[in-house]
């Protein structure tokens, strides 16, 4: 008897594990219907609010935002509360930290399980591939039917070409992406104006003058603490490559395509920037900076928060990074007179003129990033797109995102909106704090709103950049799957080699005299084959449109 009981108990324990209840899935299937807005009615959709008859929940997979200073998206923020009220759509945010977003979301996509209805595309994935794998849907039909506000946006002449840029290699639209104004936010060199004043120097305009200035920063104990601890030039990862513009190279990652730099020669042939003779001159220049202690020794691995730390300790004279962050760095510097970033301690300077007289700044590509994709499993695809359309392009949403909420961040006087400033805080930050500004969804920078959030001195400086902008010759390459596989076959090793040799040339571990051997090696490794893949892409997808 005892034995039977014990056997039964053992079996019971063994199999009870399998009976464990599953954790509750997200409630993305709501009991309500979308009868009120279903396409049963034949009248054209005009973006009427609310978007849903009864409250519907949509899940939205997103990252925690582009700036660590801004709050994470959540329904506690006034802006999102307002959107929910207006649209009658409750968003179930699934937030993943920005740093790990790409990896985590790519893994979830691979598992194809429990995907959010809408989610931001992780960098490095291919839309056509995801569609082919049955993960996302093409949005062309939804756009035609429900893209009320978005169509209006793209009807404007300045925005007409962006729609084409957002489509994938197969000509379909899979997600609306960021549109950024290239003229306000761009990678550039930001100089510590207070240090220049201290040393009685003027703003450098050529690469040689810049070099001399950095030397002065280093030698003259510019921060006045008696120690030789200045780091004249810092950068965040490869942002130092903006100096490459002065040498006629377009090698910054945002302009660079997946192998780090392609351009077009006069015959319409694709050229790899990192084997050009100009690249040698550039490496020589950086090597000079590095070995004389003018460039941060950690230039390949420094993160932005470390740069802010340097600025806060008054250790750095020049930062190569996104121009709009000059207000952040200025605000933490001990040399500032106010904490709102309104004093230009760090100010962007015009692009440097290189040794051959080239003085340009490659314009940032206008569209891309944060594409909002709709998953195949979304039960309310129509509503999902309507919501996207509203949030992305409706005047009401854009206004809220940029101005915030009446009574909190602005008030209306005489029919005009007036900012409500808080002391010791950038007004733009107070808008971000309630959920506005750069949200983790696709955003569009509109000229009329840019002036709201940046101090005047900054806008004036950026205006002076206008004559120097040069459009990138090529958009970001979008390869088909076969092309991508062929590219990886040859490109993986070349990528390793180029990165490694670049680091060695700059650090001086490899003498610059071996540059020719380096180029030869790359050609041996199959550079021609790699370029032919891109040439094929160019001839097929880009050239016809340029005409």
């Amino acid at each position, binding site marked *: 008897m005892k034995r039977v009981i014990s056997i039964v108990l053992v079996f019971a324990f063994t199999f009870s594990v399998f009976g464990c209840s599953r954790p509750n899935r997200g409630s993305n299937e709501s009991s309500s219907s979308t009868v009120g807005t279903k396409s049963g009615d034949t009248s054209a959709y005009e973006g009427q609010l609310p978007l849903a008859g009864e409250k519907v929940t949509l899940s939205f997979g997103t990252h925690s935002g582009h700036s660590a200073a801004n709050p994470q998206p959540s329904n506690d923020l006034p802006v999102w509360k307002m959107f929910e009220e207006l649209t009658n759509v409750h968003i179930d945010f699934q937030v993943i930290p920005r740093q790990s977003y790409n990896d985590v979301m790519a893994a979830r996509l691979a598992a*194809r399980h429990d995907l959010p209805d809408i989610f931001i595309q992780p960098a490095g994935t291919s839309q056509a*591939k995801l569609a082919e794998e049955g993960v996302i849907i093409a949005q062309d039909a939804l756009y035609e039917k429900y893209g009320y506000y978005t169509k209006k946006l793209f009807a404007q002449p300045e925005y007409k070409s962006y729609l084409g840029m957002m489509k994938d290699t197969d000509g379909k639209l899979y997600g609306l992406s960021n549109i950024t104004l290239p003229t306000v936010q761009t990678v550039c060199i930001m100089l510590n104006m207070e240090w220049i004043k201290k040393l009685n120097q003027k703003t450098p305009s050529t690469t040689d003058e810049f070099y001399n200035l950095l030397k002065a920063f280093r030698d003259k104990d510019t921060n006045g603490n008696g120690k030789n*601890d200045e780091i004249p030039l810092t950068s965040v990862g490869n942002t130092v490559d903006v100096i490459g513009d002065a040498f006629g190279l377009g090698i910054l990652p945002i302009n660079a395509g997946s192998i780090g730099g392609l351009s077009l020669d006069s015959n319409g042939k694709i050229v790899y920037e990192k084997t050009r003779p100009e690249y040698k001159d550039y490496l020589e220049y950086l090597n000079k900076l590095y070995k004389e202690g003018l460039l941060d020794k950690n230039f390949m*691995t420094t993160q932005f928060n470390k740069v802010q730390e340097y600025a806060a300790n008054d250790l750095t004279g020049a930062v190569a990074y996104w121009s709009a962050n000059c207000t952040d760095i200025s605000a933490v510097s001990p040399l500032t007179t106010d904490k709102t970033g309104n004093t230009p301690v760090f100010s962007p300077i015009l692009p440097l003129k290189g040794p051959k007289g080239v003085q340009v700044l490659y314009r940032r590509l206008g569209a891309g990033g944060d594409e909002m994709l709709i998953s195949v499993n979304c039960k309310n695809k129509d509503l999902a797109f309507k919501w996207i359309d509203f949030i992305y392009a409706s005047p009401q949403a854009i206004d809220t995102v940029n101005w915030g909420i009446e009574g909190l961040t602005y008030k209306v006087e005489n029919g005009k909106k007036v900012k409500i400033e808080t002391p010791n805080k950038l007004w733009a930050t107070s808008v971000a704090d309630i959920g506005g500004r750069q949200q983790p969804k696709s955003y569009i920078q509109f000229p009329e709103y840019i002036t709201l959030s940046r101090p005047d001195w900054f806008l004036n400086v950026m205006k002076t950049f206008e004559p120097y902008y040069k459009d990138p010759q090529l958009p970001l390459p979008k390869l088909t799957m076969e092309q991508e596989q062929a590219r990886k076959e040859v490109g993986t*090793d070349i990528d390793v080699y180029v990165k*490694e040799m670049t680091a060695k040339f700059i650090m001086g571990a490899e003498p610059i005299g071996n540059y020719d051997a380096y180029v030869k090696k790359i050609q041996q490794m199959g550079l021609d084959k790699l370029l032919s893949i891109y040439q094929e892409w160019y001839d097929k997808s880009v050239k016809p449109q340029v005409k």
Partner: protein
Amino acid sequence: MHKNRIIQANSKKTDNKFEIFIKNVVRDKELLCIVLLPFIYYLVFHYAPMCGIIIGFKNFSVSKGIFGSEWVGLKWFNQFFHSIYLFRLIRNTFLLSLYSLIFGFPIPILFALLLNEIRHKLFKSFIQTVTYMPHFISLVVVVGIMVNILSPNDGIINVWRKSMGMEAVNFLYEPSWFRFLYVSSGIWQNFGFNSIIYLAAITAVPLDMYESATIDGASRIEKILFITIPSILPTIIILLILNLGGMLSVGYEKIMLMYNPAVYETSDVISTYVYRRGVTSSDFSYGTAIGFFNSIINFILIFLFNKLSRSMSEISLW
């Protein structure tokens, strides 16, 4: 009890192997039940996934599924073996494991032996706790601490060097430093935790052996050398064989956190190379193929060392 005797009494000399097997199963059914759950676990999570190795021979696409994707035979292996970095990757993987083993293996043993000699109980527990705490710190934090300490601008080590009039050393950008930093931080983090199993083995040594050694006039050192170590030798060898079986599997997380292009020469290993290649689009097939290659090498190593151990001593895994 009675039932067992009846079963045994019923077995005849002419029972074939199968019947004996069934009788054993019936006799041991309670024990088998207990083992049933772990057995199913291993079957489902370790053996069944092995079938997934076939995607290493296919061009796997998630939408086509495993059986719908086309065969490509040894394509991925070919690509990998044709990489100009093949030798370097294998060498780096192997060396990092080897150094971790040569330096990292004896230290927990030594530490356990020394710890065993301490009489003061409180002190002993305190040391034990402090030394195995780093094991529980996340790898990210450990590397973060390392990066901070080693920074050429404001890390403690270089600040001290500069105050002594020496040049700052950019540790994490010098290929020659990488192996040392990788291995020593690994040892620091894990020696305490790894020593636990040796401590357990040491406490299992019967005390009367020490007593008889004392009577024979053995010193402390002699006791360690001739009693303790031989007694825990089986544990040591088993763990050694197991560690050797992981020689070609250097985990990529720690290296990814520590490396940069300037030190690819000594830090780029098979797993980081495969990771970088696959990161642009889920390159399952390639990763599987190379992982499979890794596993084969590891298996050969375990097999060889096991055989070696069996021939040289009586101790082996199987």
